[in-house]
């Protein structure tokens, strides 16, 4: 009997699903697997893991809920989705934490075995939500996932408790049926992943099949969905998150400079993955130093730059604060240094696993003295690759520290990445000074204003530099007043004129009209979705996303002048707004969300509609 024939297959353009359970339930693992499956099926995907800072909060508690949300479909998928359409909740706490974000009428798959009095109490449910009618607005599918998983895995050779742990794969099986996904790639992945542990491989394989077959046969599931593929340009694709992409960008940058990459870092959430990624890349000769602290990491990178390497350090807000003095030294000694700041919610320790964009002003201005540096921001996970490469290019060409801003959302979120052709990446080689004749450590290249990169080992170029003010050209220590003014000016000009060497500001949507939304960093997905919706509805609105925050593109004033109103959405209290307002006037409005979470598309859309209707009323 073919059960599937009794079921309805509905075509949809995109969908959003969330896996939620205890932090030990393996939700990230199956979420990731599902994301990979969707990618391979030709969807554009955008994922967002949401996990607690605690490695293992008490089982069944609200604080211990870990979630993985994925939006997938055609090209219009640019965010992890405002609200999930389907939720797999492995226990009452996961249901409680996630239900409020589910779309009305959405699907809730729960593991009813976990809805015990003890677990309900931990989730502060007086009555089981499965019984009290509180889920009436949703399609609830209660499945005894633990029991069915145990049954399905009986012959695996694992103990009952080990078998029960495979229930995440049962949930994956349910979701795979719901979205009509093939089984084979997951089974192949299991074979690779658990090569050395055949019992676990078999049990997980049996669970995922059991979940899929259960959904296929039971009357509980009536409809399933086929999600539209994207029409992406031809090529090879993979998934990347922001941290992986940033690490690859640094390796590519150093390779294109034909120099060694020295990475010095200190573990910090959410930047540690960059440290780990680069420590794996021994085939590229990456010299990885796990330093004793953030200061040492920055100083070691500066030392490596002095010795001629492409030097990178990465951190998050509290670490950036510690690196500030050393960054000033890099400004003064005019050495190339890439500092990646994967921002997280602050101040202080703040919320280490939650996202925020509140380090912009620190990156721009947070150094003693007049201390200009290049500041860049990646817009999407894959953009972290391009901006890390850009950071290496600007640092080495202009002999300057470059701060690249990413954030927790970009770091953990993944999207498809068209694998670039290494040959098409530009060469970044910086020629060392040719002859000691006439060499002076601060004799600048007249075009770039960069000083020469003469490194230890080069005969005849022996020189001394440091944090004390330098005499123009000679680099000799001096406190001369005129010289200090000149050097402050030179350092500022060197950075400012980089505006001529970066991509001009480009508006997506209307290039003039009623409203321009200006964003930077990880707000890109939500802004572009909101703007594209309103453009399709006939509004004259545009989207400008800044990747270069210091210096900003040279044509920015002109671009901005073509719009009546400017809206600046930021995951901070209005930091870019302050800067834009100071330069371009008061028609700049802020939309701020400081909740540790990225914007939803509808939040940006609502703010835009508010401005448009107000303008209209005027």
């Amino acid at each position, binding site marked *: 009997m073919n059960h599937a024939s009794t079921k309805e297959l509905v075509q949809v353009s995109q969908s959003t699903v969330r896996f939620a359970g205890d932090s030990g339930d393996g939700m990230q693992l199956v979420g990731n697997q599902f994301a990979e499956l969707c990618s391979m099926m030709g969807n554009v995907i955008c994922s967002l893991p949401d996990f607690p800072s605690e490695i293992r909060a008490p089982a069944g508690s609200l604080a211990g809920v870990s979630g993985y949300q994925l939006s997938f479909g055609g090209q219009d998928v640019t965010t992890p989705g405002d609200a999930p359409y389907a939720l797999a909740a492995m226990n009452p706490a996961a249901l409680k934490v996630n239900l409020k974000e589910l779309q009305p009428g959405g699907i809730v798959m729960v593991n009813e075995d976990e809805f015990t009095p003890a677990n309900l109490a931990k989730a502060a449910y007086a009555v089981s939500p499965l019984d009290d009618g509180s889920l009436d607005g949703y399609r609830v599918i209660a499945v005894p996932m633990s029991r069915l998983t145990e049954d399905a895995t009986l012959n695996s050779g694992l103990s009952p408790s080990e078998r029960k742990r495979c229930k995440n794969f049962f949930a994956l099986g349910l979701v795979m049926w719901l979205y009509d996904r093939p089984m084979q790639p997951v089974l192949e992945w299991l074979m690779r992943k658990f090569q050395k542990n055949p019992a676990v491989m078999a049990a997980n394989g049996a669970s995922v099949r059991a979940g899929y077959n259960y959904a296929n046969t039971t009357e509980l599931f009536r409809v399933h969905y086929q999600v539209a593929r994207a029409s992406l340009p031809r090529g090879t694709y993979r998934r990347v998150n922001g941290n992986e992409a940033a690490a690859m960008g640094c390796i590519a940058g150093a*390779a294109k400079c034909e120099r060694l990459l020295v990475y010095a870092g200190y573990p910090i959430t959410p930047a540690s993955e960059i440290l780990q990624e680069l420590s794996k890349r*021994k*085939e590229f000769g990456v010299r990885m130093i796990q330093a004793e602290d953030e200061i040492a990491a920055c100083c070691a990178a500066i*030392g490596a730059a002095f010795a001629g390497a492409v030097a990178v350090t990465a951190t998050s807000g509290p670490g950036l604060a510690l690196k500030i003095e*050393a960054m000033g030294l890099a400004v003064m000694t005019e050495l190339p240094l890439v500092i990646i700041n994967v921002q997280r919610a602050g101040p202080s320790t703040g919320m280490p696993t939650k996202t925020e964009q509140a380090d912009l002003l620190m990156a721009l201005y947070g150094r003693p003295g007049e201390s200009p540096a290049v500041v860049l921001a990646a817009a999407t996970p894959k953009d972290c690759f391009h901006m890390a490469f850009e950071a290496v290019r600007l640092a080495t060409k202009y002999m300057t520290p470059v701060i690249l801003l990413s954030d927790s959302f970009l770091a953990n979120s993944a999207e498809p990445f068209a694998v670039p052709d*290494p040959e098409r990446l530009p060469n970044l080689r910086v020629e060392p000074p040719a002859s000691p004749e006439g060499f002076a450590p601060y004799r600048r290249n007249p075009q770039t204003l960069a000083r020469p990169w003469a490194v*230890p080992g080069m005969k005849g170029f022996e020189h*001394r530099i440091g944090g004390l003010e330098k005499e123009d050209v000679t680099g000799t220590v001096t406190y001369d007043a005129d010289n200090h003014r000149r050097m402050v000016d030179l350092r500022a000009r060197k950075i400012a004129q980089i505006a001529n060497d970066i991509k001009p500001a480009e508006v997506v949507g209307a290039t003039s009209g009623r409203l321009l939304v200006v964003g930077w960093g990880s707000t890109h997905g939500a802004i572009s979705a909101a703007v594209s919706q309103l453009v399709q509805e006939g509004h004259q609105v545009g989207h400008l996303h800044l990747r270069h925050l210091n210096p900003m593109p040279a044509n920015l004033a002109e671009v901005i002048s073509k719009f009546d109103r400017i809206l600046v959405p930021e995951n901070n209290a209005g930091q870019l707004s302050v800067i834009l307002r100071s330069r371009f006037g008061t028609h700049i409005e802020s939309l701020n969300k400081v909740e540790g979470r990225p914007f939803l598309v509808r939040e940006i859309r609502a703010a835009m509609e508010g401005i448009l209707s107000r303008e209209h009323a005027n």
Partner: protein
Amino acid sequence: MNTPTDPPLPAPLPTPQAPNIDCLRDLTRKDFQTKQEVRWCPGCGDYAILTQIQKLLPTLGIPRERFVFVSGIGCSSRFPYYINTFGFHGIHGRAPAIAMGVKAANPDLSVWVVTGDGDGLSIGTNHLIHCLRRNIDINILLFNNRIYGLTKGQYSPTSEFGKVTKSSPLGTIEHPVRPIQMALAAEATFVARTVAADPAHMAQTLEAAARHKGASFIEILQNCRVFNDGTFDQVNQRKNVDDRIILEHGKPVRFGPNGSRGVVVRNMQPEIVEIAPATTDVPGLLVHDERADSPALAALLAALEPPQFPTALGVFRAREEPTYEEMMVQQIEAYQARRGPGDLRRLFASGATWQID
């Protein structure tokens, strides 16, 4: 697989030219002097150290362009400006971290850190300890004058308990850091103490440090004429034989006129014994072993101090161990030998990929 059109892999840094021995013979102290006017106070102990270093460097068989002097902040940290090599004047306390980066990027360089008791043992203690325990092949010169000089006379972490200074008008209430014990606790592979006022002893100690492969830590006791004059007068003078123990590997620990006194350990405590003339066998008399596995006896000798004991000078510990940068490069080379060199195309397409046609 590498295709011929792949981008070139990161090339090694500009390789310093092989030492030209004839040219090296010509290097003299003068080659290591700079035009920069030396601006330490008259009578400062730093001058003597600078002179010894400028004399030592030409004898090491290393081309001048391969020397890098890195410093932090303080009087001592002006040192790189006065020595004609590559030099980097860093920020307060961070010289060992900067030097670590230099050495990681190019292990062929001869890297020297110049620091002081404030720079190295207060704001930068952390880096110093980690640099030593990693055994990075760097020579660290710690100028100890037991005072903050550049900021004009506050007590330092090595100032004696109760010392009256500008910031301790009623005397300090802090016990001093003991630099040699700290370095030994970090299991530094070369630990020595010398005095700026004894050029000959300083010269031999610096040379031993320079020739040691691995992290070398040298505490140089030094006078600050302006803010802490006479702080080491007792140990400065060779003639004060009762106040100085000159450590020599494999030799009994003796001092005093004609070596008439020695150090023994009883109940885990050091004691001084009188040694009668012509005695050859003194029970329990310590014999110095700079290569001992355990740094414990070295720490005991380092702890000897006036007024009860003389001050020990010389090499406390010297052991050959693999260096940090050596192991770093070995790991990379072994990995590359096993897996082949890096290939950007393969890196970009690592993990699960799919084709869109």
